[in-house]
């Protein structure tokens, strides 16, 4: 399917929406984690399938060891969010989420899934609420643990030609923890979003 790139106005509107969403998401996350959180200014790119690996590596870094969680969203917008953890002491995550038990492999995985779900929920709900629409979410699942980022990205068979990529990175004050959220939307959703953005702009 041939996707027309967004106009400058549409791209600006999307950036605006994303920025507003990050503000809201940051507030909710700070309440949950009881710590000051930093969400970066979202980077938005329209990419072709073959540009995926290089684009993400440029944004996140050519990391040797990452863990990753994926979660699908659907309804007006369909796509997948991937949360990449570049540095995540499990002990830090446990402390952030109020786990006070012994850490084992299962608990570590649960921590990744939980933070992933919180991030995806906060950020994607921020975006959908700003756009005046609602999203549903699937359960998150573990994509990779302690694997090179390149391997995580290329392992997946991609069935799309073009995607809209939104990237945000997330850190918590006084913690080493760092993660990136990548939101992918393809094909029809890019078109749907275009219409939603046009409506959004009409309101202002």
């Amino acid at each position, binding site marked *: 399917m041939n996707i027309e790139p967004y106009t400058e106005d549409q791209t600006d509107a999307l950036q605006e929406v994303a920025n507003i969403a990050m503000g809201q998401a940051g507030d*909710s996350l700070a309440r949950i984690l009881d710590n000051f959180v930093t969400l970066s200014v979202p980077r938005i790119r329209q990419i072709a399938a073959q540009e995926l690996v290089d684009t993400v590596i440029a944004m996140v870094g050519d990391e040797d060891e990452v863990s990753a969680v994926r979660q699908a969203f659907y309804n007006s917008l369909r796509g997948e969010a991937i949360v990449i953890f570049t540095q995540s002491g499990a002990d830090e995550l446990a402390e952030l989420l109020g786990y006070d038990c012994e850490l084992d492999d*299962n*608990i570590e995985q*649960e921590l990744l899934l*939980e933070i992933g779900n919180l991030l995806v*929920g906060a950020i994607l*709900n921020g975006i959908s609420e700003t756009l005046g629409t609602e999203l549903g979410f699937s*359960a998150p699942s573990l994509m990779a643990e302690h694997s090179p980022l390149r391997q995580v990205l290329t392992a997946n068979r991609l069935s799309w030609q073009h995607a809209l990529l939104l990237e945000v990175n997330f850190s918590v004050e006084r913690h080493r923890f760092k993660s990136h959220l990548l939101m992918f939307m393809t094909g029809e959703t890019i078109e749907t979003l275009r219409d939603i953005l046009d409506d959004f702009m009409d309101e202002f």
Partner: protein
Amino acid sequence: MPDDKTPNLLDFIVDRTHAGIFVVDRDMQVVLWNQFMEMHSGRKAEELLGKNLFDEFPELPRKWLTRKVKNVFILKNFSFTSWEQRPYLFRFPHNRPVTGGVDCMRQDCTLMPVKNTAGEVEYVCFTLFDVTDTSIYQQQLQALTRELREVSNRDGLTRLYNRRYIEETLCREFKRARRHAQPLTVVLSDIDHFKQVNDFHGHLAGDEVLRVVSHRLLDSLRDTDILGRYGGEEFLIVLPNTGIEGGKVLGERLRQAIESEPVNIDDTRLEVHISLGITELREDSFDYEQLIGEADQALYRAKEAGRNRAMVYAPSAPQRLTEP
């Protein structure tokens, strides 16, 4: 259309559906408890409505669950648990014959924010799915995969790790030791005059010697040490978190384990010895192959010096110029 006799369709479905559905408010008081929950918990809705969930089910992980529910109220977003990380929320008996390893129902849970018209979250609704069957299949699959992996990583005769796998392991340990600035020692060992065992006593005897030596080496190593069959009569041993002194002590222990007791083949008692070459990771070590090369050099010197001994790699000692 519903009338006096026809039940409200949604209520009926929520109550009777094949999944546990229960709802709590901000204070963790039970507001809804469907039939699935009644039947599996043995507690009726009328006993539980208005009561605190933790008071009624004290075995629930209180701190974790309170926090998880609170997050749904704050974030107004779905939350999930999976049997793979957390086998169950409630300890319910499961309904299928046990094929092994599953003592109670495995559950996936979804937590859903229930919003009022003002958009605020009033309740959290739990949906609890019985995924016991899936979990059993998954575990069977994983057990099979583990077996398959073991078979592909092991040498058939000695049951030790094969060459490919022990090299991969050393490569991994090398990187890890580098990353965490930890010591690492490598030992290369082979059976002295092994060719003669095969020539005089036959290949079956040779096989038995290999098996016995492998077994004794394994017995003498620590849990964290990794042993592999590197060649016909050669063994590669990786000692994580061990420096050269530790390597020397272990090397001597291994040598003695083989020398102290002959190998019995039918009526023959065969004297068997091994030679060993030992080296450790240094700042200037380039890669794991270099360590194997150094251990090999040290092994060669042990042979030259009369066999049945361990030698430590010394950069200044005369090196072997050609491959054996």
